[in-house]
């Protein structure tokens, strides 16, 4: 399967099943398109057939010389021979292995506080309460969650624990105590905890910053961008905006971490479809690691992204991609999370086939110790999987998640981006499409655009070098 597109002056050919990216000139682009139209499943043998050559000549000879066409066809044949073009999808049989493998739990999202000091209008956690009551996780519950993780992690050494909420800084002492407990336990069990925290920054102070820098592998700090954009969606409960209070603290925190191992993360909505300006704003504030994601919400929400917004959103991603290249050339580069792609050292096939790991490798834990497949399912009793006292009591839920992949989702089978999103977000599919094996179409459209931009940026960077 081949995906071709043109972006920012680059002609790009992605060979979906090998993951190889080819940047080609105009004649090369047309020849590959023509060969793909003739036969999507070209092989070295079919490419060498006289009929292929004749058809190619018939279609393009008036435009390009015979020598040029022959040159390109030889190149295409060589790449096909090397397994870099027209590669057949032979991965489906591996799915059996992926499904049957004994999964271990390697990551927990600890809902340390179902309470929040902001009242963000798009919050899927409903101001931290997750369709339930306000609650803080106790040290005892958190300890049992870490014990569960250690006991169920098999031979995995690196274990991830994200302190999430609500707002985790509202239960900071428990976070500190759990980190201390984790550090003590990792020595006894030959494990390594990678702690992370996601915070709105309201309660951030020097003491907390110091602790975060000492103990947290990553910190996600929430800000939506420009002051007016942020304050519209991320106010305090009294309606006052949060920007002025948190931005200086976030700048200080990012600098104290040498601009590494953190993300400033925002959400864009229908109210700021010009979100590339918000990313620029992050850059102007001096941030180097950033992420802005589309809001996910019900169509009836006034701020939710609609299909009619997609052209503008695509345009914004293009603008942003060009801005990133421009900044990089000036030596002022930064990372935009959704354009990060590692063409040489990216995830292995197993990872790409097993997806995000929700419900199997990754679980969310509520303040009272209940397990859910991920943070977005918390509060939906149909997905309550067990608890820290009894362990997993409904393994059938894990099985259902384990069996979901790019080959069980019809829409993924035809999609060029399937090995980049790995089937997409399960919660979005469940909440906004027809179930776990369906796909959230708007999300897919945006993901495809991001993958195209990310690859184009790689092409531009390769050009610079």
């Amino acid at each position, binding site marked *: 399967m081949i995906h071709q597109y043109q972006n920012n002056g680059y002609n790009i*050919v992605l060979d979906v099943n090998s*993951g*190889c*990216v*080819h*940047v*080609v*000139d105009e004649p*090369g682009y047309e020849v590959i398109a023509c060969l793909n139209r003739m036969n999507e499943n070209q092989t070295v043998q079919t490419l060498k057939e006289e009929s292929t050559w004749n058809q190619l000549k018939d279609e393009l000879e008036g435009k390009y010389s015979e020598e040029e066409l022959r*040159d*390109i066809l030889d190149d*295409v044949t*060589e790449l096909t021979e090397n*397994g*870099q073009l027209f*590669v057949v999808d032979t991965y489906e049989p591996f799915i059996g292995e992926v499904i049957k493998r004994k999964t271990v739990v390697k*990551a927990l*999202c600890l809902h340390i506080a179902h309470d929040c000091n902001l009242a963000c209008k798009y919050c899927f956690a409903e101001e931290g309460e997750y369709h339930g009551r306000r609650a803080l996780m106790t040290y005892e519950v958190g300890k049992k969650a870490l014990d569960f993780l250690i006991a169920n992690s098999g031979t*995995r*050494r*690196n274990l*991830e624990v*994200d302190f999430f909420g609500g707002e985790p800084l509202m239960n900071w002492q428990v976070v500190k105590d759990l980190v201390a407990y984790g550090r003590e336990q990792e020595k006894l069990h030959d494990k390594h905890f*990678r702690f992370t925290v996601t915070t709105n920054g309201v309660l951030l102070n020097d003491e907390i910053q110091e602790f975060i820098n000492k103990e947290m592998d*990553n910190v996600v700090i929430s800000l939506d961008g420009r002051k007016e954009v942020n304050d519209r969606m991320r106010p305090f409960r009294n309606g006052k905006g949060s920007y002025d209070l948190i931005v200086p603290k976030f700048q200080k925190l990012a600098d104290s971490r040498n601009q590494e191992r953190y*993300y400033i*993360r925002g959400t864009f909505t229908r109210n700021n479809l010009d979100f590339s300006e918000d990313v620029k704003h992050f850059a102007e504030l001096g941030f180097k690691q950033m*992420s802005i*994601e589309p*809001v*996910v919400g019900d169509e009836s929400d006034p701020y939710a992204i609609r299909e009619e917004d997609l052209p503008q959103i695509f345009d914004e991603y293009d603008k942003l991609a060009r801005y990133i290249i421009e900044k990089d050339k000036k030596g002022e580069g930064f990372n935009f*999370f*959704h354009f990060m*792609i*590692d063409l*040489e*050292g*990216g995830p*292995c*096939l*197993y*990872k*790409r086939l097993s997806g*995000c*790991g929700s419900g199997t*490798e*990754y679980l969310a834990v509520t303040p009272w110790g209940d397990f859910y497949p991920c943070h*977005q399912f918390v509060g939906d009793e149909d997905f309550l999987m067990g608890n820290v006292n009894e362990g997993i009591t409904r393994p059938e839920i894990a099985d259902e998640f384990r069996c979901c992949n790019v080959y069980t989702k019809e829409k993924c089978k035809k999609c060029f*981006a399937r090995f*980049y*999103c*790995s089937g*997409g*977000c*399960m919660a*979005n599919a469940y909440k906004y499409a027809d179930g776990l094996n369906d796909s959230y179409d708007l999300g897919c459209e945006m*993901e495809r655009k991001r*993958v195209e931009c*990310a690859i184009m940026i790689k092409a531009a960077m*390769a050009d610079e070098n």
Partner: protein
Amino acid sequence: MKHIKTLNTQTLNNTVKKGGCGECQTSCQSACKTSCTVGNQTCEHSK
């Protein structure tokens, strides 16, 4: 090659041989909590 520049030599197929250790980061623990971005994670062995 005059007309085609290939950006990467690593192919998905090659990752089958040594992949699957599971030590890499879970995607939602990085910066996305509402989408799925497996493709931009890094293999633990290539760090």
